[in-house]
């Protein structure tokens, strides 16, 4: 593979509320046994991208912990690995990254030292499986300067995303970031392929002009000057933008077609090994349509839910439509419905934690009820 990868894990997701108050959104647990960054790392790893810069700035502790060894993603070889870059205090201007382009510019030495011909830029909070070898092939065939991966999504509100207008050859004619009046349903997935030398030049030009954003200052501004193409992605895609999308994405894992696409079709999703024992189902427990993980002990009823590792469910408890993260303990005769429990929540006997599908109840990390 002739590309290095860049994962942008810098933005603060205030709409993930208490779940993101103590962790970087890229380290958000999802699907029972993953952090959302695992999907970006696995896609790179299986596409043969061996060197990855992970650029981040908020609450990086849990993210740094997760990627502290790159061997879990088959990286970390003599000439490869995951490099975590956080803001350095070079001078009074560089305390934080001011935008996507600025974040890469401040780490431009990484690009200059690399020898690969291309760079693939990916967001950190997307759940999808994509083979970048195909995208790169397309990029070369189209003789593109930049390729933007997009998905046609008439069902979502395009006002929250970047939109691409394309001609018949899939060449970009217009790009709008968070348009007030969307003209198209082609949504940018924030994945870009670009030649490394070109990216270095663009970033240096941008920096001289005090510009900081890839979407606004490169894609929109250069849409006529450069050959920018759209690559249509048709698989499953979700971004963890807010509580509702986190909840919906987790429940999507209960769908067999989706599980097949995410876990079987290409490869397993790689993550840090946890060494948990198998799940223990007690006499008289009742589990339906749910995902469970290592170290769970189930004595009660679990329906339509996603349980992370090391969750204990007491006798007579009823769990429905719930996302329960690592290390939670639920006592006896307790009801948890339409809720997300962050890590290490303890709920005593006979309690009721009940939300509605429109108003998911969220219990923050470590709370004892």
């Amino acid at each position, binding site marked *: 593979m002739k590309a290095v990868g860049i994962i942008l894990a810098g933005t603060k997701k205030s709409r993930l509320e208490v779940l993101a108050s103590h962790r970087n959104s890229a380290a958000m647990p999802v699907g*029972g*046994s993953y952090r959302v960054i695992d999907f970006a790392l696995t896609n790179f790893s299986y596409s043969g991208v061996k060197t990855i810069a992970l650029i981040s700035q908020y609450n990086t502790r849990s993210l740094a912990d997760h990627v502290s060894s790159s061997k879990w993603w088959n990286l970390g070889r003599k000439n490869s690995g995951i490099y975590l870059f956080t803001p350095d205090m070079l001078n009074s201007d560089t305390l934080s990254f001011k935008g996507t382009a600025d974040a890469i510019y401040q780490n431009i030495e990484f690009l200059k030292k690399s020898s690969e011909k291309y760079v693939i830029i990916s967001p950190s909070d997307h759940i999808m499986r994509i083979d970048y070898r195909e995208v790169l092939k397309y990029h070369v065939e189209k003789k593109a300067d930049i390729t933007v991966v997009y998905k046609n999504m008439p069902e979502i509100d395009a006002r929250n995303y970047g939109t691409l207008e394309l001609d018949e050859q899939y060449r970009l004619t217009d790009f709008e970031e968070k348009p007030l009046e969307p003209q198209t349903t082609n949504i940018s997935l924030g994945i870009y392929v670009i030649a490394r030398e070109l990216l270095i030049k663009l970033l240096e030009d941008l920096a001289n002009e005090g510009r900081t954003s890839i979407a606004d200052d490169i894609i929109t501004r250069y849409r006529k000057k450069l050959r920018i193409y759209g690559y249509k992605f048709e698989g499953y895609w979700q971004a963890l933008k807010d509580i509702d999308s986190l909840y919906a994405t987790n429940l999507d894992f209960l769908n*067999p077609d989706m599980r097949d696409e995410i876990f*079987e079709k290409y490869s397993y999703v790689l993550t840090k090994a946890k*060494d948990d*024992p198998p799940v223990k189902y007690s*006499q008289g*427990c009742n*589990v339906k349509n749910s995902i469970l993980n290592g*170290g769970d002990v189930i004595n009660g009823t679990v329906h339509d839910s996603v349980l992370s590792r090391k969750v204990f469910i007491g006798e007579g408890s009823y769990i429905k439509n719930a996302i329960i993260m690592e290390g939670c303990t639920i006592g006896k005769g307790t009801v948890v419905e339409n809720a997300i429990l962050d890590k290490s929540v303890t709920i005593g006997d006979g309690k009721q934690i009940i939300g509605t599908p429109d108003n998911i109840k969220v219990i923050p990390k470590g709370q004892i009820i």
Partner: protein
Amino acid sequence: MQKKEMIAMLLAGGQGSRLGALTTQIAKPAVMFGGKYRIIDFPLSNCVNSGIDTVGVLTQYEPLTLTKHIGIGIPWDLDLTHGGVTILSPFVTGKQGEWYSGTANAIYQNIRYIDSYNPEYVLVLSGDHVYKMDYAQMLNYHKQKGATATIGVIEVPMEEASQFGIMNTDSDLKVIEFEEKPAQPKSNFASMGIYIFNWKTLRKSLVEDKEIHPDSDFGKHIIPSLLNAGEPLFAYPFKSYWKDIGTIEAYWKANMELAYVVPEFNLYDDYWSIYTNSDNFAPQFISNTANVSHSLISKGCEIEGEIYNSIISPNVRIEKGCVIKDSIIMQGTIIKSGSILDKCIVSENSVIGDNVRIGHGEDIHNHDKPHVYNSGISVIGAYTTIPDNVGIGKNCEIVGNTTHEHYPNGYLPSGNSVVLKGGI
């Protein structure tokens, strides 16, 4: 080079012939246990948790699954630049090759490996046992006693003592006599096959014994010769869970016990984790049609049928309408819709067709191997296929890609075997 105080030599070459079809393609230490584990994970994890970072694994019988499982030792943090895990297989020297002919002979043939770490002590282990043990405590004991060799022992019921190697000791636990399977046992201290030796003494003894016994064995030769030489040998009594899973019934029972509410052997403690090599599978999914009770289920499983009182390894698929009861299903096996399995062990990567019924019939011992299959449990080997709509009795053994012709009238009666030599 940095000296290692103690290194471990893990004997993993045994076949375990009384495990029947479970070990036709897989060495006993690589047989799965407790869902996601393989037996060797227990001694290997014990080593790491005891602070031993250099382990030689001696393989001989059917080593493929075992060697692939261990790899370079990543799951046990044994991928080190100095030390770590090394697979030691028999080799050719000069023009002659030699198999490992006995437990001590196997160590003898790897003297150069041990010497390269210049250790003070060598821990000799068997890859056949399930237990959690802190070898560092045993080493402390060994040093306190000023022993040349310390032998791990476990108290067994007196009436079973005649099946074990028995250590007779004085009140200070100093070994005064060793008896292999004595008819009239004087003690119930059974050797666990766990030894700590002062390397200098052991090395000398191995070299000397090689000239006398070409099949040099620890229990039969080395321990008696050290005793005769007047060396101080001590017994180290171990007072926790330890299982030698020698027979199909013992294997089945030890697995089943893990599903108890508070099992004697607890896998759910953080203090002494057991590490293995199976962690990137998908999460397990229990469907709307499933019903699971009193069972252990591992990563990557898709469960659509009913499972009672069973142990399921990773990546197993159980389709709709299946009823799995009192059974053990190993990694990568598929059980197709409507099959009913009762008291049955299915080894790895096998396929059971639609509407198959196993474990149904009279409880008569296996005709060919009555000493192996006599507990009512039927065993399906690894990489085996069972066609649709057939019935299989109790104490049956099936290995290979069987077709309808192997099941006259669609039924294999209790006590019968179908063992097909696999073509490549």
